[in-house]
């Protein structure tokens, strides 16, 4: 099988530096992108125009997490300053400087809990810290989830149902925590190099990891009624010729997207475990995101951001 995706749109005003993360939100069909130039932008997917920009941070932004309703965006900078941006009002309602001592290590990757009220962060400590996401107490640390390894946390990501959290570290291990009990439920060691991206399937049953070892690995992360983890790694997707930097599973759970330092975007059929489309880009593809299901019913469009700072929209050939 092979699918064709065509380039639909370029953003009107590119970022001044690489786009490091991106998310197609559920509200207003808007896209949020963050960049190494320290700026976060909200885009109109129809025109490619900027709808709103938050005040620039002095340093680059590395991690982005948008609430499922598309109303709030949580993002974090290289130095560990975390912001909560109200996308509707356009105001920063929370700012947390995670590097302030005494405290935890500076945050690198952040993830907003889909159930609201908290966010998770990981970084130098290799653990996950849970913080308040309420405007008044924003950033106050609630709990810590210990991975037991002192490796740098590259990425953390809540499952869409909000019950679990996945953490990946620089040495390639992946940890899954149960948030209710605060316990570590599974550890996967399929990668030996840093995992820069994690993405959950919409039903929270599959997890896809993208690693510097050029592979993507798909895990079955369902838990049995007794709470035991199931089989683990079920597929390895190979084909990229350099680091895989970003990934996303489509809203219908059939397809996966990946962006790589080999300057290509690939679309994978998860059932067939094979690439069904490869698109060449101009530089490293740091970020990919599917159009969410509330806006579109099928996996027909996605958005990417990369080294050249341009946000690009793509759609399946034949769709309008």
């Amino acid at each position, binding site marked *: 099988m092979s699918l064709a995706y065509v380039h639909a749109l370029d953003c009107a005003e590119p970022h001044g530096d690489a786009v490091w993360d991106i998310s197609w939100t559920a509200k207003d069909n808007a896209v949020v992108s963050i960049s190494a130039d320290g700026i976060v932008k909200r885009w109109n997917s129809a025109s490619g125009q900027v709808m709103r920009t938050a005040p620039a941070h002095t*340093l680059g932004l590395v991690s982005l997490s948008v609430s499922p309703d598309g109303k709030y965006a949580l993002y974090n900078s290289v*130095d560990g300053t975390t912001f909560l941006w109200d996308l509707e009002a356009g105001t920063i309602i929370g700012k947390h400087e995670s590097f302030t001592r*005494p405290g935890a290590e500076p945050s690198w990757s952040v993830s907003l809990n889909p159930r609201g009220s908290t966010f998770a962060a990981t970084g*130098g400590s290799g653990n996950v810290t849970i913080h308040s996401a309420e405007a008044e107490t924003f950033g106050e640390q609630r709990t810590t989830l210990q991975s037991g390894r002192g490796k740098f946390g*590259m990425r953390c990501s809540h499952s869409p149902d909000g019950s679990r959290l996945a953490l990946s570290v*620089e040495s390639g291990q992946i940890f899954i925590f149960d948030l209710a009990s605060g316990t570590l439920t599974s550890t996967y060691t399929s990668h030996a190099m840093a995992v820069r991206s994690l993405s959950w399937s919409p039903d929270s049953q599959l997890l896809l990891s993208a690693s510097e070892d050029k*592979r993507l690995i798909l895990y079955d992360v369902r838990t049995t009624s007794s709470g035991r983890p199931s089989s683990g790694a079920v597929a390895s997707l190979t084909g990229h010729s*350099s680091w895989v930097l970003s990934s996303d599973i489509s809203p219908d759970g059939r397809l996966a997207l990946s962006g790589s330092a080999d300057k290509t975007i690939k679309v994978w059929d998860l059932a067939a475990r094979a690439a069904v489309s490869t698109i060449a880009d101009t530089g*490293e593809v740091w970020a990919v995101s599917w159009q969410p299901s509330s806006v579109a019913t099928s996996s027909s469009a996605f958005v990417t951001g990369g080294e050249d700072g341009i946000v690009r929209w793509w759609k399946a050939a034949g769709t309008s």
Partner: protein
Amino acid sequence: MFAFSQTIRVTSWPPLTSILGTQAPGRSIDIELGGQEVINIELDTLDSNADDVLEVLKEGQPKVAYWTRLAGEYMRRGYLDAAEKIALSAIESFQSSGSTSSLPSIYSLLASIQLAKARKAPKLKLLNARQDIMTAEKSRDDYMREATQLLNHGDQAAAEGGEISAATKELLLLTRAIHQLANRSMEDALRSFEAARILYTRRQFASALKLFQQVLQLNPYSLPDPRIGIGLCLWALNHKEKAKAAWERSVEVNPSEWSGQLLLGLEALNASKNPELSEDERIQELMIGSKLIERAFNSNQRSASAANALCDIFLRKGQHKRALKLAERTIQFADTLAVLTDGYIPLQAKQAAEGQSKNVLAAIGFAQMQLRNDETAAAIHTLDGLLQPPNPQKSLEATAMLASLRLHPRPGVSSSDAAQERTKARELFDRVYRAIEQSEDATAQNGSPSRNDSSLSRAVVDDVDMHIEFARLLQSENLERTGKVFAEAVRVGEEAGRVDPRLLNNLGVVSHLESRFGEARIMYENALVGASALGAEAEAMSTSVLYNLARVYEDLNDEGKAMEAYEKLLERHPEYVDAKIRRAHILGSMHQGNEAHDLLKDSLASQSSNLNLRAYYTYFLIQFNASKGAREFVFGTLRDHDKHDLYALCAAGWLHYYQARESRDTSSKGVEERRLLFRRSAEFYEKALGLDPLCAVAAQGLAIVTAEDALGTLGGALPPGPAPDETQRRAMNARDALEVFAKVRESTNDGSVHVNMGHCFFARDELDRAIESYETASQRYYGGRNVSVLQCLARSWYVKANKEQSFASMTVALRFTQKALHIQPVDKAIVYNIAMIQQKSAELLFSLPPTKRTLAELQRGIAHATHAQKMFGSLASDPASAVPYDRDLAEERKNTKGSRPREWKARDKGVLQSASAFETLEREREAKLRTEAEALAAARALARQEAQQWSADLVKNESDEEREQRKARKAANRKVKSEAPSGDEGLSTPANGGAGGEPKKKRRKLKKGGAASAAASAQASDAEDGALFSEGEEEKPTKKRGATRKRVAREEDEEPASAPRKKQYISKATISDSDEEMP
């Protein structure tokens, strides 16, 4: 002389009739017809027309003996066609009558006839003979083949026929023997017949003589005449007179036999050349000889020897045309090498005489003869003569042949001569290719094969072997052309419908080496398919191809497929160490060091003396920071295996260097030790260079040693000797090293050399060029993901920004640093650098004249400064036990109370030492600035006094005013300290006194106000912005205080985050098989 001595070895073979030549006493034969009539056939009066006899035979249906007898008789008389006719009729007749037992003898008879014909047929047909056109004739080989077939038929018939008489069997055997003889299967024939002849051919003259004499005794009228043989033997035994007598007798007995005449003629000719004889006698001899030879030639026009001898005579007489014809005839009929050679010689000689001194055909033929005689040197000489001036010939065939010969190793040729030969061969091949290309161009232009083309032999163009030979010659020097030549060979192969997989493989290797991986992959895959089609014997071939394919997968970044291929290889050949090494390499690159290590140890256990393996293991140990283990291992290699191993030498050089550089021992003993290590490092590199002057790695290593002045004082890190001109020396060292790097760059395909060049440019303060070099390394080799190169880029931009007071450059520096952190977020030294640059860029911005900055920039600068402070706070209080930066410095910076010149944090603690290399330069500058500053100290004090007083005067003025003034003073101070030229400005202020200072201040104030108002007007509506602006104004003084101190010296002593320059030891493993692959 040569003509005789060589010709004498060759005589005509006895006509085959000798075996059939039964001694019929009456010389007549009776054939019964129908039981009553008897027909008597007189054997001596047979004529060439056999029809009558045939009729009689058919009618009479006599026994087989009659048939053969008659046919034999015809044959004996030379009526070969008639004999053949009879024999064929006999076969027909016996086959129809069913008496198969008679057939064998007839078959053998027929075979004899064919052999007799073969004897008269040309052996070789010159396709382009100019005078003696023979193409209509069947060649000797054809007759031989027919004869063989007939004999086999005979055998078959004999086997089928069952009972056959012993005589028939014998007959068969004899015929076969002759056949074998004609075919030169000496050993077989020796057992059967004509032992004497064979003995003669085998140069056992005495025994041959005896046998010939026996024959003569038994049959004085035997034909051929044994006397000829006797004569030959006698001649060979140096009884020349007796030999002559024997031949004379033979001619007497058989006046029609040509061999005797020929021999006598030759003898006479030889005699004519005898200088002892008088002139008359010699002429006489010559006359006799000519006459005899002419006669011999006339009686047997197809005798190569006779033709040869006659040719010689004609040559002497100057009848070139006839000589040419005869020479050509000789060549066509000659059945021994010597005669053939002789044939070519007169051909050449004749042409020399004609003035057309260089005949291609003759020369090539001659050279070929010489080759067959194993006289390679002579052949080369012949061809050389042909192709060289004067009057060089354009013969592709000859050129290609000569090139090939020159390339061919000969015994007793020194290596330098061989190299020279290679060069010459190359030139020759070049010429061939030029000719081919030209003709192709011509073809392309004319649209049809040009006239020129016809002169171009397709045989040469399509000679795959020649292409391969040339490609092999080129492969060490010019890859691109090698590829072209291989491609040509493949094309030829394709045209022929079959391409050698090895050829495809080689073409793949060329593409591979030229980094055209896609093409290489296709070639390898095709080769693999081709090799597997060849079956089991191509196993070795397909193994190598598969290995190459795996390598190209690696280069295409497809480790998965490469891994599969290696595993497949290892399945087939569990001890294929190269595949194991590559597997380990892939594992290692995927951070699976332990697995890789196991594999390598495993390989080492089985092949501990494999130098490739040892080189890779050394590399592996260094990569995984086991430099101590690596050192031991590499010394083991040098000590126990090969003390001239380049890889080990380079590795040893690097390890010594590394150890010395990393050593922290500052005691005098430690310093001495470090010196020693540096020296030894240089020695190792030098040794490697001595072994291979083109070894890029060693050259680069040595250049690094030079650049960092490790043999001197290591840029002051080692207690110096007298080194007043340290700065100058550094610049010079860097220049020297750059020269080397520039050369190394040409030959290595690695980013490290660009990085090193960047370091050198940096040391020479050529920042733009440094940036360019780093960029090349980062983009082309490391995909922008090499953290240390990104850091180097950031550092260069940082220094450039400070030098040029450019905020934009500082922003670029910050960008690169952030990129580095994004790649390697765990590295806190980068975080420190980010904070530093942020702080720096704020300072820089504030120090700029207001015209050179925008409000937005200023705001951003302020934000940077604030943020940097916070980050330094975080860094200073990092709870980790060890941090890759100086906590105190961070603390200091957090408070922005001031700083020391050394602010930049090297990415790696390990490189601090070499950082000091750059410090000297810094110190130098610092010192200079300090003296200047001191010189101005008094003036400055004055200025301060002045200002203080002035401020006292204005103490009642509005606080706003005061703030302005203070600011101005600080600005002045800062300028004095930071830049020598601006010191004048500072100086002038106090000199002008209070009144002089005032306008200055005012100007400043005005400008600031201007900037502010401009900004304010631009954004008048935005109240928030206005507020921000004023806030900025207020904060500025404090910032500047920090800046004032810091600017005393420029921060650029930071060490190149010079990641230990990477060395690649893997190159040797790269397609190492390709050489062996060459077919």
